[in-house]
């Protein structure tokens, strides 16, 4: 290599990059040490109710509870869309199956109600939860097996059709699901019963204490579930399954040729995504205690997709951010009549949410298709040691460009 002096390379590192490099360099236990206070802070948000963040028109706790549900959905959809690259437009179907399973098993008006046979009201929801997850997983299997041989656009339309079929089945099979009348009084976890003030526990809609109302409790429950799901999904990501998903997403034919059993792993992605959707549906059924087909329409499917795409497809924390934006922003504006001194009509702005999200999707796809928090390609096999080394090099480069010769400039190439 010639030794003529070339201009020294200056590596520009943004704040996000520095943050990411620092985070990835930490050892796992350190990451937990830093992360847990952050999670506790988020969990305490509905208790503290910071004045700027608190929603005016609706209850902050309920908004956060809804956010928790959507975050779970986003993580599940991320497995299918973000990690494996399968565009699923009918994800709301799995959501519906989960919710209906819980409702069918525990609602007093359902023909398959178990709560008047032998199931006590206290344990009903918890009992129905794993059943909901299992049944939704089976549904994912049933949907995936015939359709996963299709590619891209066709798969999207077929899953859209499936989502609609689930909703229409729920609406039409009135002998089972009571159609538009819906299944009322679905069970919810009965915890913290106080015969005087809270005869039905902290999770029931009658708990209108402030700030620890039912919304806050459901939010805490969803945080616990989100952490569990993140652990599972994260584990999968770093395993052979996750690598197969990335390979399928990038180039399915090449993956197939290299020996990755693509169909099997695509099916697994579907099943896992479906299970998480079912879990979220069970959460919804317990929260709202009323399940009817109108909730599970195509527009909600698009909204979930929006959350994943906005936040960053493939990045499981990014999609949580996306879910937060989707849920929180419209509710932030609801009922607000002035913002930073400017008079606004908050209700109108909240109504326009689909318009804004649609514009955001189009603009984002043109200028930043990877989303807000992109999924960075990582050297999955040898992650940490390489990171520590390249981080040192990157930081050195950004601090003292003149001291580093040009030839070593490509040691950090792997970090991209």
């Amino acid at each position: 290599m010639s030794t003529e002096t070339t201009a020294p390379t200056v590596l520009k590192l943004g704040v996000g990059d520095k943050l990411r490099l620092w985070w990835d360099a930490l050892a796992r236990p350190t990451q937990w040490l830093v992360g847990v206070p952050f999670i506790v802070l988020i969990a305490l948000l509905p208790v503290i109710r910071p004045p700027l963040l608190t929603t005016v028109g609706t209850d902050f706790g309920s908004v956060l509870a809804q956010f928790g549900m959507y975050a779970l959905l986003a993580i599940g959809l991320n497995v299918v869309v973000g990690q494996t690259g399968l565009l699923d437009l009918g994800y709301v179907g799995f959501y519906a199956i989960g919710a209906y399973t819980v409702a069918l098993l525990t609602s007093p008006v359902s023909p398959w109600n178990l709560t008047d046979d032998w199931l006590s009201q206290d344990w009903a929801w918890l009992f129905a939860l794993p059943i909901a997850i299992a049944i939704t997983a089976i549904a994912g299997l049933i949907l995936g097996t015939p359709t996963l041989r299709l590619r891209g656009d066709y798969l999207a339309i077929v899953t859209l059709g499936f989502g609609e079929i689930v909703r229409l089945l729920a609406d039409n099979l009135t002998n089972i699901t009571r159609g538009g009348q819906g299944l009322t009084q679905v069970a919810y976890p009965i915890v913290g019963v106080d015969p005087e003030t809270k005869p039905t526990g902290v999770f029931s809609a009658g708990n209108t204490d402030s700030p620890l109302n039912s919304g806050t409790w459901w939010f805490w429950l969803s945080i616990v579930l989100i952490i569990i799901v993140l652990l599972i999904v994260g584990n999968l990501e770093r395993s052979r399954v996750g690598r197969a998903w990335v390979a399928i997403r990038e180039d399915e034919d090449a993956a197939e040729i290299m020996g990755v059993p693509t169909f099997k792993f695509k099916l697994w992605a579907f099943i896992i995504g479906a299970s998480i959707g079912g879990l979220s549906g069970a959460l919804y059924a317990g929260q709202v205690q009323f399940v009817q087909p109108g909730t599970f329409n195509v527009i909600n499917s698009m909204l979930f997709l929006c959350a994943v795409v906005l936040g960053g497809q493939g990045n499981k924390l990014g999609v949580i951010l996306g879910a937060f934006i989707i849920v929180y922003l419209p509710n932030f504006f609801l009922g607000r009549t002035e913002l930073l001194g400017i008079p606004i009509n908050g209700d109108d702005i909240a109504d326009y949410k689909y318009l804004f999200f649609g514009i955001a999707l189009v603009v984002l796809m043109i200028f930043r298709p990877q989303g807000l928090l992109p999924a960075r390609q990582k050297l999955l096999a040898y992650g940490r040691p390489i990171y520590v080394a390249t981080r040192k090099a990157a930081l050195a480069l950004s601090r003292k460009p003149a001291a580093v010769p040009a030839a070593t400039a490509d040691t950090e190439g792997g970090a991209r």
Partner: protein
Amino acid sequence: MRSSTPKMAGTALVLVAGLLLAGCSSKDDSGDTPSSTPGSSESAAASGDLTIQPLVQIDKDGKEVAAADTSNAADPAGDGKAKCDGVSIAMAGALTGPNAALGINILNGAKLAVDAHNAANADCQVTVKEFDTEGDPQKATQVAPSIVGDKSVIGLLGPAFSGETAAVGPVFSQANLLSLTASATNPDLVKNGWTNFYRGLANDAVQGPSVAAYLVNTLKFAKVCVVQDDSDYGIGLAKEITSGLGAAADASCAAKVKTGDKDFSATVQIIKGASADAVFYAGYYAEGAPFAAQLKEAGVTAAFVSADGTNDPQFVKQAGSAAKDAYLSCPCGPAPEKFAADYKAKFNVDSGVYSVEAYDLATIMLKGIDSGITDRAGLVDFVKNYDGDGLARHYKWESTGELASALIWIYQVK
């Protein structure tokens, strides 16, 4: 190289000629009247003159019952000496959306009562807080916590539709907030054990058999096709009507449509093929109006019968002359003259179904507030023990939450 221009021109000509021909040949016998200029909605279109007129009040056997005497009705103004502070009542229903007219009727009726009260009682100003649910049970579940969370609200007029009442009833029940509905008619609503829920009108378990008896005995319809939508109200009402009609309800032409449907061709064909005497539509006017219009266009001569969800001037407006001679039932009574005049003067539109009930029920709540009640439980008790006349009927509730006696009115579009 074939020149494409003559071919293009040729096909274009064929296209235009074909359209003209098709248009011409098929419009010869469309009853050509000399061209009436567009833009002038001339009175030749009889639809502009159609209104919904009350026919008769009936009991459970379809027999006529004389209208109630409204001279003793409770007056919201009261004695003018009431004292209260920071108290409000809420109204929840469809204020926007395809069936908004039904919710707005209720809101206006309530406002009429509350404004009369506030004008007469300077020391007791009650506010009406509106909560729009769009008639959608889903939206209602999002709105209900706000109603319950507002501490100044001690009574709720609503929810308006049966579906949303079923969805959020438990929330109000657990909060023990008085839920006084002027329009939700599904009979199952009182079977949930809610001690705070009271219905200010007859339910569908009365409306169904009453109307069925009227159709079979008075109007002598032998074959009726029951068409239902997929809303809670429609499903419940259809069940009651079908069981009330008994043998007259023909199961082979019974059909189900969905809210939001705009075209009903298969249903229309099936009904046409069945040659029924009447079609009963259980649903709201947003679908009922296009359905009636399409039935008429297809040449179905069966009478169109529907219930309170369709009983609104909007139905006549959207269906046009297809609405003529339609029978519409309602657990609500016609507006007394003075009320109708006051309503028209205040809101510039005619009063609709349930405006009178809303007025009466709001008056009852105001009476409770005037008597010094400031908490939710107190208002529930007040209604539980209330016994008095209103504009529409006498109000006295049983322990279930149903009125002790309530009857159905039949209207006709004339």
